[in-house]
C-alpha cells in the first residue's frame, strides 16, 4: 500500500504522498505543523476541522480539498478517510483501504482528552504507521488535571509575589491547550505573543472555547504585567521581548520537561510535562487496539519502539524521515516553534 520515497510516504495505487517533505502533485496532510504541512505541492487533501490553521500555514492560494472526518474519498480506487488524531485542531490519521487491505498512518497523535480538538479514534487496520516522538518507557504522562493544577499554583504564587508568569508552548496547538486548561481560573489577565494570538483566533473561529487574551503588542509602554499569564512560543525565550515584563518567572510546557536536564539547560524556573504526543503506555495500548499485525515506526525513537514490538510478535519496520525526531534536538532547533512537543 505504502512505500518510502525521497519525498516521504507514498501510495502508488492512489498516487498520493502523506506529509511529503518536498513538493509533489497530490499531498494528504495529517496536520498543520511545519514538519508535516510543507509548502509547494499542487493539491492538498486535509481535514475540514483544520482548515483555518492550515490556511494560516500554507497561504490562501494553496489548492486544498477539505473533507470531514470519517468521510471516505475515492482516490484512483483507493478509499482515503481522515480520522481524528487528537494531536491539535484538525489533526488526522489517514486510513487507506484498497482491495480489502487497510493501512492507517497516525500522523502525530495523543489519546488523552483535549478540549481544543476532536478526540483520537482507534481504527482497526492491518498495518499501522505510528509516530514515536516519546517512544521510550521513561516517558509516561501524569494525568493532565495534576499538571494544570501545578501550572495554576505556579501562576497564583507568582501573582501573589507580584511576578508575571511567562509560559512557553508551541504557537500552534500547545498554546491553545494551555489557554483552554486555564479557562475560568481568573487569577489575572492573559496576554499572548503575536504568533500565538493569530492561531488562537483561528481556534476561536473554529468554535473552540478559550479565555479572553490580549496581544502584548497592543499594550502601551509602561503597562504592568504583574500577576498576568503570558503565553509565548519557545523562540521568545531569552529574547529582549521579555524585558517589558519586569519581574517574571518562566516555564515551558512540553513532554521533554519530563527529563530534568531538559528543564535545566533552558534555565527555566519550571517545566510542565504536558505533551500533545502519546506516551509510552498509550503508544503500546494504541498499537494493540488497532489490531495491526505489522507496524511501521516513524518520527522519533523508531528503532527501540520497533524492536520492542518485534519482541511482542509483530512485524515492524523503522521508517527514516527527513525529520529525525529522535531525542530533543529538532524540537526547537530544526523548524523552530513550528515543530511539536
Amino acid at each position, binding site marked *: 500500500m505504502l512505500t518510502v520515497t525521497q519525498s516521504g510516504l507514498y501510495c502508488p495505487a492512489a498516487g498520493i504522498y502523506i506529509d511529503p517533505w518536498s513538493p509533489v502533485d497530490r499531498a494528504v496532510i495529517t496536520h498543520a505543523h511545519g514538519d508535516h504541512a510543507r509548502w509547494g505541492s499542487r493539491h492538498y487533501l486535509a481535514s475540514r476541522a483544520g482548515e483555518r490553521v492550515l490556511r494560516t500555514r500554507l497561504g490562501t492560494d494553496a489548492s486544498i480539498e477539505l473533507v470531514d472526518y470519517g468521510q471516505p474519498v475515492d482516490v484512483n480506487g483507493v478509499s482515503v478517510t481522515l480520522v481524528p488524531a487528537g494531536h491539535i485542531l484538525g489533526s488526522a490519521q489517514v486510513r487507506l483501504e484498497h482491495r480489502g487491505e487497510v493501512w492507517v498512518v497516525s500522523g502525530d497523535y495523543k489519546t488523552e482528552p483535549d478540549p481544543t480538538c476532536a478526540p483520537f479514534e482507534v481504527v482497526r487496520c492491518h498495518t499501522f504507521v505510528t509516530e514515536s516522538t516519546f517512544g521510550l518507557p521513561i516517558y509516561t504522562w*501524569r494525568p493532565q488535571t495534576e499538571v494544570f493544577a501545578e501550572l495554576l499554583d505556579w501562576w497564583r504564587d507568582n501573582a501573589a509575589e507580584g511576578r508575571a508568569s511567562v509560559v512557553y508552548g508551541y504557537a500552534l496547538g500547545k498554546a491553545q491547550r494551555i489557554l483552554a486548561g486555564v479557562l475560568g481560573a481568573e487569577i489575572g489577565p492573559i496576554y499572548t505573543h503575536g504568533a500565538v494570538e493569530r492561531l488562537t483566533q483561528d481556534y476561536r473561529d473554529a468554535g473552540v472555547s478559550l479565555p479572553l487574551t490580549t496581544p502584548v503588542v497592543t499594550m502601551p509602554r509602561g503597562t504592568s504585567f504583574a500577576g498576568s499569564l503570558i503565553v509565548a512560543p519557545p523562540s521568545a525565550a531569552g529574547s529582549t521581548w521579555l524585558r517589558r515584563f519586569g519581574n517574571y518567572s518562566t516555564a515551558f510546557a512540553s513532554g521533554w520537561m519530563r*527529563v530534568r536536564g531538559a528543564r535545566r539547560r533552558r534555565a527555566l*524556573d519550571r517545566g510542565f510535562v504536558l505533551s500533545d504526543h502519546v506516551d509510552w503506555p498509550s503508544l503500546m495500548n494504541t498499537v494493540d487496539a488497532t489490531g495491526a499485525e505489522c507496524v511501521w515506526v516513524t518520527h522519533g525513537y523508531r528503532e527501540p519502539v520497533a524492536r520492542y514490538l518485534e*519482541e511482542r510478535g509483530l512485524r515492524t519496520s523503522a521508517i527514516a524521515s527527513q525529520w*529525525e525526531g529522535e*531525542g530533543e*534536538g529538532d524540537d*526547537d532547533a530544526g523548524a523552530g516553534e513550528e515543530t511539536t512537543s
Partner: protein
Amino acid sequence: MRSFARLYADIDATTSTNRKVAAMADYFSTAAPADAAWAVYFLAGGRPKRLIPVRRLATWAMEESRVPDWLFEESYHAIGDLAETIALVLPERVDDGDAHGGLSVPLHEWVERRILPLGEMTEAEQRETVLAAWRELSGTERYIWNKLITGAFRVGVSEQLVVRALSRASGVDEGVIAHRIGGRWLPTPEGFSALVASDEADADESRPYPFYLAYALEDELPALGEPADWQAEWKWDGIRAQVIRRGGRTYIWSRGGELVTDRFPELVAAAERLPDGTALDGEIMPWSGGVALPFAQLQRRIGRKKLGPKILSEVPVVLVTYDLLELAGRDLRDEPLLERRRLLEALLSDANTWPDQTFIPSPIVHMATWDDAVAAQAASRERRAEGLMLKRRDSAYGVGRRKGSWWKWKVQPFSVDAVMIYAQPGHGRRALLHTDYTFAVRDGDALVPFAKAYSGLTDAEIRTLDAWIRRHTVEKFGPVRHVEPVQVFELAFEGIQRSSRHKSGVAVRFPRIARWRTDKPASEIDTLDTLRALIRAHE
C-alpha cells in the same frame, strides 16, 4: 522527606542564587535540627560511602517495571543519568495520598534507619528496602532517594551558598560558619546546633581557613595603578592546600575541603618543625632539583592507592607557600600581605631549620614596570607555571572569590584545529543532546583521535550540531555515533605531553572548544606532527 524534597524541587526549579539561598534559609530555620543536619551534609556535597552499586538498582528497576535491559539502556543513553532513568521507568506511584507514610517520615529517619544501614545489609535485604522505598515515593522523592543511596546527590548549590543560607537563618557570620563547616562536624542535632551556635569561640584545632580565591584579570595592567603596589608570583598548577599545625598535630586540607594529610608524608614530616599554631596556604607541587615537574607526574602519584618508596622518590612534592594565615595561634588574615609575607619568609628562610626545602616561599617575580609583568607572564610556561598572580601588597586574606585585590592572569592556551569524529549524548543538563565529542587530527591519510571535549559551544550551536550529527551518522555503537569527519573545531588546552595510554601518543589537559570553524574544511586540520612539535617545544 517531603519538606526536604520540596526544598530540593525549589532549588532545582530556579536559576536565581537568591531564591536558592532563601529556600535553604527557610528550610534551616523551620526544620528539626536532626533533619537540618543531614540537609546541610548533603547540600554541601557530603556523601555516605557507596552503599549500593547503582547497577544493582538498575537490575531491580528493570524487574519492577518489566522493561527489558536493552530498552533500559536506550533510555539511559537518552537521559545520561542512571538514577533518573530508574526513577522514570518505574511505574508511577498510585496517588493514595501518603498511605505508606513514607513522605511524612522525617529526613533523619530516612537517612539513619533506611539509607545508612544499606551498607550492612545482604543483597536480599537491600532489595526489599529499596523496592519498598520506590513504592512509597514518587517523582522527585524517588529520584532523590536514588541519588542519596548511590552517593551521587547533587543539586545546584555550592558549599558557599549553604553557608550563606545558614548564616541568614542563624544570624551567625558567614566566615565563622564557613570555618566550622570546612572542618570536621557530624550531621547530628548537636553538630547542626554547633554549626549555627552564636558562641563563636570554638576553633576546632584541625580547621582550615576558607581559601581566598582570585578572579581572572579583566582590565589592562595600567588600570591596576602602580606596579609597586602589587606583588607578582607565578601561578602554579598543582593542588592548592593548607598545612595546619596545631596541638602537636598536622592537618593538610585541599581546597575542595578534603583532609589529604596521609597523601603527602614528606610534608607531614617537615611540618613537625613548624611552631604550634601555624597555618600555611600554598600549592602542593611535584618538585625536583629546584624546578617543577609536569602536572601529569603529580596525577600519577594521586592515582596510586598505596604510596610506595618508588613513587615517593620519583615524584617528591613540596609546598610552594603563598601565604601565612596563622602564626603562634594568631589569625593573621587581616594583616596586609606585605606583613604576612615578611613573617612567612622569616618562618621559612632559616636554612638550619629547613635544609630539605620542603616549604618554599612562593618566588616573587621581579616587576619594576608593567612591561616586566608582561614579559614574565609570557615566559611562565618555561617554569611550568600557568601565568601570573597579582596581589595588592596591602591586601587582607579574604574569604571566597572576591574582586579587587587578587587577580590571576593565565597564559593563552595551546590551540589546534581538529575534526569531530565521534559524538555521544551528554549528562545532566545536556541530556538528550549529543554534547560529548571526540576530535581527531590528521596523520597521513588517517584520522587519529586525541581529545574529548564537552564545553565551549553555545546552546544554539549545540542544538544545530546535534541535528547535524543525527543526519550524518556513519555508524552507531551503543550511545556513540561515528559521524562523517566534516565539522572542524579549534580546540584549546592547557598542557600537552607524551602518553603511552593514548592511541595518539599524546595527552592534552583541559581540552575545550574555542571556536566552531565552519570556515575550514577538514582537509586543512592540524596533524599529529603539529602536536608532537608542541610537546618537543615544552619539554
